């Protein structure tokens, strides 16, 4: 699947609803973007345009905020999100290997890419999720996995893929 096809269809009423609920002054910029991303997984351009049109927040402020904070993404994401913690404890315990093994399993070889070509999973590095005593830690769709080694990361991913009917490039490595 071409990743371009993953662009979300934006519902203007939903965007309007968030603006009404959160506010339309400039201090609402971050929470509005969080609401949009919470729903679509990223910030679709169309939704950003609607915010600019319907609030007192101008485009440069909105895009300035969207590109400043690590949480926001301007590109579509896969159907499932994997967050790999790269806090100090996780780094020391080998968080890098989690990335290597997950990317291998997903067939993502280009270092510039973070989403499997079939749009199944996106692998994202996060600063610290605060479960340092259980390092290394990764989170798939909100569920955290503690003390995961590189090989465990693949196993958990394959299990998740099976349960969610996703097909992975490297699944033949599993036995």
């Amino acid at each position, binding site marked *: 699947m071409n990743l371009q096809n993953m662009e979300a269809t934006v519902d203007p009423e939903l965007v309007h609803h968030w603006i009404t609920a959160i506010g339309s*002054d*400039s*201090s*609402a*910029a*971050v*929470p509005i*973007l*969080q609401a949009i991303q919470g729903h679509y997984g990223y910030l679709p351009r169309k939704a950003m345009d609607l915010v600019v049109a319907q609030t007192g*927040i101008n485009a440069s*402020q909105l895009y*300035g*905020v969207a590109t*400043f*904070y*690590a*949480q*926001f993404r301007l590109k579509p994401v896969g159907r499932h999100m994997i967050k790999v913690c*790269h*806090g*100090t*404890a*996780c*780094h*020391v*315990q*080998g968080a*890098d*290997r989690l990335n*290597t*093994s997950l*990317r*291998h399993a997903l067939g993502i070889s280009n270092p510039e890419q973070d989403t499997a070509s079939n749009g199944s999973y996106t692998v994202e590095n*996060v*600063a*610290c*999720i*605060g*479960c*340092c*005593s*259980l*390092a290394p*830690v990764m989170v798939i769709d*909100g569920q*955290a*996995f*503690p003390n995961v*080694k*590189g*090989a465990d990361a*693949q196993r958990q991913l394959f299990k998740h893929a099976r349960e969610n009917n996703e097909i992975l490039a490297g699944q033949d*490595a599993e*036995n």
Partner: protein
Amino acid sequence: MSNTQWTITVGEGSCGIAAGAPEVTELLKKRLPDAQFKSVGCVGMCHREVMVETVDDQGRSYLWGNLTKKNLPKVIQFLRGDGVLPKTLLIRSSEEPDCEGGHYLTRQTRIALRNVGQLNPTSMAQYLDRGGYDAIKKIITSGMTPEAVIEEVKIAKIRGRGGAGFPTATKWGFARNAPGDVKYLVCNGDEGDPGAFMDRSLLEGDPHNVLEGMLIAAYAIGASKGYAYIRAEYPLAVQYFGQAIQDAREAGYLGYHILGSDFSFDIKIKEGAGAFVCGEETALMASIQGERGMPRIRPPFPAISGLFGKPTIINNVETLANLPWIIQNGGAAYAAIGTEKSSGTKVFALAGAIARGGLVEVPMGVTIRHVLENIGGGSASTRPLKAVQLGGPSGGCIPERLFDTPIEYEAINATGAIMGSGGMVVMDSKSCMVDLARYFLEFTENESCGKCTFCRIGTLRMKEILTRICAGEGTMEDIDLLEDLGRSVQSASLCGLGQTAANPVLTTIKYFRDEYIAHVQEKRCPGGVCKGLITHTILNDKCSGCSICERYCPVNAITGTLKHPDTWVIDPKICINCGMCAEVCNPDAILAA
């Protein structure tokens, strides 16, 4: 089967949930349908999650740890009266006084954490039962003036637990005396230090205590509005704190005319969006205002002109969590704990190569060694401990020979590290201090907001040099250059991020120069970490020929014949030294050196 009535308490903080608490609870409920269940936040013994306490109707208690679906049947059998006591899973018991795990908690002094792991964070009734909101009631009903509250906190001598250690009462005094009708009180829950989770545990485990701390601070400075700025990465903390706000508002502890007095105060939650620099006060305020989180020059200080141009006080979660206790017990009682210049207790998040990682609250003045050895149980492996990283990216590495340094602001600063918010990441001999410095520089370079040239470019150049050294391409001049650049970034940056960014580099060079020299001159990584300087080889005499390394190698660099150990080899031209093979190899037949 016995008819014992059990009350079962499950630790369901983020770490407990991550370790599998929901599965364990489900199974316990199924097999012990008559038991009463309670949910609490993280007790702090994260190394023993999933943790469950069972107490019978005669008060006999058993605290279990490391529970999984697999070993749980043994505990269930025992609780049902038809099995032996599974001692390996027992942490502490009223019936077994010699359990080792009990020391973890008994060797601590818990003030900020006093309720964490003891109550259900979503139950305001349980907080009230433990004396919750008595401090704010005392202030209002006894007619304590804001000045009297500030005086009590001054007597307590508490310093800001966010890291810098500025005296809390002094800061409050500035805002109290600043002109203006509208003042703000902000709770800084943007715990961005990788390796720290004290704020998460406090917000998740005892949100009403933090909220009551906010009420006390707001009353003291005359604030009518408050914000709790909490990391979006802590969804449970956001949820529980939101619920605490709602419950407190309904009970009359928040809103207009609190407890019938003239004091009005309300709180909104703002979720952080993943910018480390927002831990800095002026950047945090910019973020709340919907801008990029960039710091600005001070003065004006936030206490005079802060959020939306109004006087603003920003206190760290841990500082706030101490306040109800201080008001209830008096400032002098707090000042009696700790040392002359560093009073009270400090919460640390212990992680890394330590046997018993988790949350630890100790009186100031105890030594680092006490925390690591007597509470943390020393090294998690047979390897000796070599250093502790204190204060995250703003902090530094303290070598083992300085472990007798007392935990107080000035003594820690003298080592080149800082107290910071309390992250303690422990390293043993299998870690590389140069790699660690590179890791932190990559972090700060990434998190620099870009406003100050030295921070923006200086951290980038330092990271490049460190990357070069880790790849075995460094020179001795690089080490001097790192020190020079580090000092320049320190002195020419506007906010704490840049001012402290060089600390991990400078302290590792100061205490572990030999490791830098090994990387540069001998092209060797003593910790066996830096990919450019190690080679993975199969020790055929240890190999079992099982092929698991081949299956997990992401680049197909390993070949051999099944069950023929002598045939297995790693092609060094293909190998990327990721270490997956060594990780999965059961007979430990892969050497990284």
